[in-house]
């Protein structure tokens, strides 16, 4: 992957002794970083290590407190607000950064619309939008409004937006966090195509196998300090993880203790139909971790939302501990001990303008009432517990949640969901944007919950995660259950076969290739 020839190429973009503080709080300490044309340079580090801050500085969104940036060998001051795009520095933000009212084509060309005779050339923009979406194997109507798209499609639009620009440096902040394997592969093909053309790519991900596959060099940050920049060939996932968290990281996944096959079924879903899903049936047992795998948009979220009453069911029944239930509002499912954690933390999970405390307790405010009034000290205690349990790192409790690093937002949302002390927990992409160290913690928490006798559904697009955690795996495809895997069947290949429609439950023979 990496070769000597590449190291001789001069860097196109580099940072020299860059430091950054937000107010009094230092976030980056004297970082040196560079990226060369045609290479993929990955940045890894724990949540809050300063990765996003560093790439914001590299793209002009933030200005460094001290230090300098060089572009094409010239020391420059990058223009703010994404104007560095004109120089060829293109950034995909960590959080979705699309205007919900605009269409896909509008979004892809926002800020650099194509014009003819001074007027927008909408036909051409639509055509090019469709073309670039096609190279990404996404079939989204260029005229669809962003607010009708799924999170994954939105992410693909972001990627399309970025690769459709004339990038010389393409910086991607966790672009794969919401993507499943196949979308990730498509993205990697495109990245490879771009690097082959000499584009420099900076890539952030918490998925170490992706780093190993894609990156030429890796820079490791820890607590705002530069730990090392090394060629990928010299590394193994384990050694990267160790550099990241500063300690040996053994057994990412906790040992699976065998579920009790006689354990009572706590959640039974039969023939459930909802907006985008059809004929869904499955059982969830006490103490079980049930994985939901499938391509993006296969309807896993839709199932979860229909079960907890966030979306309307059109048919089918749900029984909880043998009792038929019909949740029409989330409050009912929460009261019944079923909690759902959304994958869309920015749009549905957290109030970005508010502090940690109101976010943590929003779902369970009534547990913090004393004589009918909110007891803030009880809320503070809850926050303290959650901060300790989920290792949430924030400057202080009043900082707006939108300012937390992505991973810490995710941990806060996990804390929020767990506050309701549910018996059945449905987690939608629970480790989205979380670093390996914390991932390990979360996996252990999930396993411990199951061991305690709770039941957990994990919806995840990360196959490794589903495989590493689940006792059984439901694979969905285009709104239906394609198959349910158990024990030794749970392998990457098998899941993908069902997910891609190569295999269907009932018939074991290949339907098509």
């Amino acid at each position, binding site marked *: 992957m990496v070769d000597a020839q590449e190291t001789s190429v001069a860097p196109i973009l580099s940072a020299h002794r860059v430091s950054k503080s937000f*107010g009094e*709080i*230092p*976030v980056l300490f004297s970082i040196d970083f560079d990226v060369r044309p045609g290479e993929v340079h990955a940045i890894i580090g724990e949540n*809050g290590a*300063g990765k996003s801050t560093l790439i914001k500085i590299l793209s002009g969104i933030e200005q460094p407190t001290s230090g300098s940036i060089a572009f094409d060998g010239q020391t420059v001051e990058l223009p703010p607000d994404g104007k560095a795009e004109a120089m060829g520095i293109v950034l995909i933000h960590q959080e979705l950064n699309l205007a919900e009212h605009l269409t896909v084509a509008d979004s892809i060309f926002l800020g650099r619309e194509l014009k003819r005779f001074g007027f927008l050339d909408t036909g051409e923009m639509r055509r090019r939008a469709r073309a670039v979406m096609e190279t990404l194997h996404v079939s989204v109507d260029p005229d669809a409004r962003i607010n009708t798209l799924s999170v994954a499609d939105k992410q693909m639009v972001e990627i399309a937006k970025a690769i459709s620009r004339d990038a010389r440096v393409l910086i991607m902040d966790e672009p794969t966090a919401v993507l499943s394997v196949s979308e990730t592969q498509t993205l990697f093909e495109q990245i490879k195509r771009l690097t082959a053309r000499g584009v420099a790519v900076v890539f952030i991900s918490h998925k170490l196998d992706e780093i190993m596959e894609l990156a030429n060099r890796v820079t490791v940050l820890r*607590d*705002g300090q530069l730990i090392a920049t090394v060629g990928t060939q010299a590394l193994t996932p384990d050694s990267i993880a160790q550099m990241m968290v500063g300690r040996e990281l053994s057994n990412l996944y906790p040992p699976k203790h065998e579920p009790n096959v006689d354990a009572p079924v706590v959640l039974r879903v039969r023939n459930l139909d909802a907006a985008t899903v059809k004929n869904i049936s499955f059982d969830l047992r006490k103490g079980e971790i049930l994985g939901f795998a499938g391509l993006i948009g296969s309807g896993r979220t839709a199932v979860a939302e229909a079960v907890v009453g*966030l979306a309307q069911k059109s048919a089918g029944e749900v029984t909880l501990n043998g009792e038929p239930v019909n949740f029409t*509002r*989330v*409050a009912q*499912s*929460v009261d019944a001990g079923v909690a*759902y954690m*959304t994958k869309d933390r920015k*749009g*549905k*999970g*957290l*109030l*970005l*303008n*508010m*502090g*940690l*405390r*109101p976010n943590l307790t*929003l*779902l369970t*405010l*009534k547990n913090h*009432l004393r004589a*009918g*009034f*909110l007891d803030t000290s009880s809320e*503070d*205690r809850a*926050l*303290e517990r959650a*901060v*300790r349990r989920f*290792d*949430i*790192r*924030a*400057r*202080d*409790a*009043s900082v707006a949640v939108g300012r937390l690093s992505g991973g810490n937002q995710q941990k806060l949302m996990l804390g*929020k969901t767990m506050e309701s002390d549910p018996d059945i927990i449905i987690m939608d992409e629970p480790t989205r944007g979380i670093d390996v160290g914390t991932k390990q913690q979360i996996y252990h928490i999930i396993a411990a919950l199951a061991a305690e006798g709770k039941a957990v559904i994990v919806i995840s697009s990360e196959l490794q995660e589903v495989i590493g955690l689940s006792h059984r795996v439901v694979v969905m495809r285009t709104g239906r259950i394609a198959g349910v895997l158990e024990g030794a069947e749970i392998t990457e290949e098998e899941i993908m076969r069902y997910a891609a429609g190569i295999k269907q439950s009932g018939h074991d023979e290949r339907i098509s290739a």
Partner: protein
Amino acid sequence: MSVSAPDIAAKPARGFRPDLKTIGPLVALALLILLGITLNENFLSYNNITNVLARSSFIGIIAIGATFVITSGGLDLSVGSMAAVIAGVMIMVMNWLIPSFGIGWSVILAGMAAGILIGGAAGIGNGLMITRGRIEAFIVTLGTMGIFRSLVTFLADGGTLSLNFQVADVYRPVYYDGLLGIPYPILVFALVAIGGEIVMRRTSFGRHCAAIGSNEQVARYSSINVDNVRLITYILQGILVGVAVLLYVPRLGSASSTTGVLWELEAIAAVIIGGTTLKGGYGRVWGTVVGVVILGLIGNILNLQSFISPYLNGAFQGVIIILAVLLQRGGRRD
């Protein structure tokens, strides 16, 4: 950089910026008071202060309701017309009950009950159309603003509805008297303000309002019954308009098609001067109180001097409103 876990929660919740934002309206208020003192030695007199506060109490009570509506991302343009209808109907009810109840407090209490009821009902109407009908709050309340205004004109037959004089004499003290030297309107305003502040900060309802105003989806996913909370804010607004009218009727003893004109704008202005965000998500009741007092003082100060042509009163008001908000936004960039 990041603080270790346990002491996050303990840290003081304020930085520098929230401070400016917090004290902004207070600074504006202090400056206005200084201006008042230099203009007239009677400015700080007991009479003047109680006058200003008592007459600000109607708008004040309404604006406290508006704080909740706006915090949860809504808007109510109908409050002024609603006040007129409530006043009109209250007066009609009282006049109509005199033959059976006689002159006295029983008539007045019945009228008060009617006022609060109508306020609540109007709030329910607004709220249902907005939450169940899914029509923009601006449109619904613009519509009901016209409807209420017409209704009072119709009830008054184009003229004025006047409360029977003897009843008015019994009722009058509710505006003009007080307890321990504090006029009742000020007391009621203070009670509503304290109650509002507690509800906003110390109850789930207040928290839910802010959550809904901040992001409706997040609120829904957090098991908040968005429609109900919204509905309640409009009902609360209606009831508080009713309470305000209970104090208004003994002062004016009449209602006509001009009663309460433009109160909605004044109430919204007070709310925003007080630091509540017009787009929702953040509200503070005490700020609204400061906003109301600022607006009340502007009018008072204009009467303390003879330099500014009365034609330019509106300009003075406009400038102060902008300055008051500029003070709290000072240097903020977000």
